[in-house]
């Protein structure tokens, strides 16, 4: 395990992402609601640049008391990274696929100290 300083904290805007190349590894350092998350920028589906896609809240179905469908809503508490190749959606905080928890992004520990961002690979 090696800790690598990848950038200054100010290099990544809120809701932004920075793609860093550490040797042959391409890592997306994602900033979301003040926290940092780091994933291999490689979708487990077909290898798409998953960290570079749009972010969308989880879509949930609202049911009535009779269990009938009422409407859809965005669950703003769970935001997804969406792979731009095929729309595979992953929880931005965990890297777990929205529909199949066995499918996950490769996640790396990330921390912020003294204005710098570090990723451990």
């Amino acid at each position, binding site marked *: 395990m090696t800790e690598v300083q990848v950038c200054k904290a100010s290099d990544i805007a809120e809701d932004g992402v920075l793609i860093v190349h550490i040797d042959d590894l391409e890592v997306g350092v994602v900033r979301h609601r003040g926290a940092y998350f780091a994933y291999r920028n490689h979708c487990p589906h*077909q290898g798409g640049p998953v960290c570079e896609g749009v972010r969308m809240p989880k*879509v949930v179905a609202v049911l009535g008391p009779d269990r009938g469908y009422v*409407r*859809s809503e965005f669950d703003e508490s769970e935001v997804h990274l969406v792979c731009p190749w095929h729309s595979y959606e992953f929880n931005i905080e965990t890297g777990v696929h929205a529909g199949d928890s066995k499918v996950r992004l490769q996640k790396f520990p990330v921390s912020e100290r003294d204005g710098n961002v570090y990723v451990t690979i």
Partner: protein
Amino acid sequence: MLVRNPQDAEKDTPTLLAHAAEQARARKYEDFLIVDVDCHHYENASFPEIAAYIDDPVLRQNAKVQGMGGQGWTSPEGSYQELNGRIGRVRDRFTEKTPSSPHRDITLSLRWMDALGVDIACLFPTPMLGLAQIPRLDVEIALGRAYNRWLVENVLANEPRIKAMLYLPFNQPEACYAMVEEFGDKPGVVGFMVTATHQRAVYDNAYMKTYAALEERGLPLAFHGSFIWGRENNFSLANRFITVHSLGFTFYNMLHLTNWIMNALPERFPKLKLIWIESGLAWLPFLMQRLDNEFMSRTSECPGLKRRPSEYMREMYYTSQPMERVDNAEALPLTFKMINAATQLLFSSDYPHWDMDLPSTIYDLPFLDETTKRNILGENARHLFNLEPIFGEQKLLRRAERALQNTP
């Protein structure tokens, strides 16, 4: 004398309706009340404002992304293939910068082909696949022929790496025959394509001379999967595009393939090669088993057949995309075996559509040997279409660089 040039006039409503205003004055309409009980506005001009009033936040977001009309959410087709902004490459393609020459379609095609490692590609239209459903036969024929001519003259004639199976206006059998006669020998034309949602039966005797013309030239006949949603009874029960796409893109090919076999067309046109496009592969084991099982009891209903249906199916060709590969480590190898994929499967990407597949979907399969991978990725198509192998420039450069590196 008052002289006015209409071209100089404002195109506004008062100018257009000046004579109506004259009528109103002449008839002294000011003396009584007039009520118009049916008039219209074009509310789509205010669509972003209207969308903001949708209560459901997910539908509101969908509406803002898609707008009104086109082939989208609010159209009779009801489609929203690009997943409401989650996939942006089709949108971005319209603003991608290209040089003035060669034709933009050539430049854009070669860019993705080089990136994926594809050397030769068979190009199909996107919205014009929907010509199959338009109500006017003359429009389908006129647009289909215009598209074919345009593609042959502007794209195929100028880029040997791009081929096409041209559009057949299947609603009009005579026009299909004329299309094959007119374009069948043009450079770059490697076959002809029917959009599978045509509501015409493939066994109609009116098509026999078209099949004969294709067979004689050695040109394959392809059926390209598609869907109908809002205007078709069965799929109007679906309330999500995922349902329509999952079933529709396979259903119509299943129907035509079954009709093709049960009417013994493989026996009647034994050298005509059939290709089934964009239905994936998972439907094939189902259909083979189902048809064989029925055939053993109902042999009398299909007297032209000399073998089980699955045996004819094993001699047809199938494109790979969208290849189902979700936790199916046992099902996929069996599927490959059942369809004799080593010789009958043709790699396809469907780029740039939302469910495109890369060559790695084939190349990374652990149960295929290197020769079979290469057959599926290229050699099967080369033999089927009698292609001259042309490699992409970038691949030739990489090969030369590797040769240099290996030189002592």
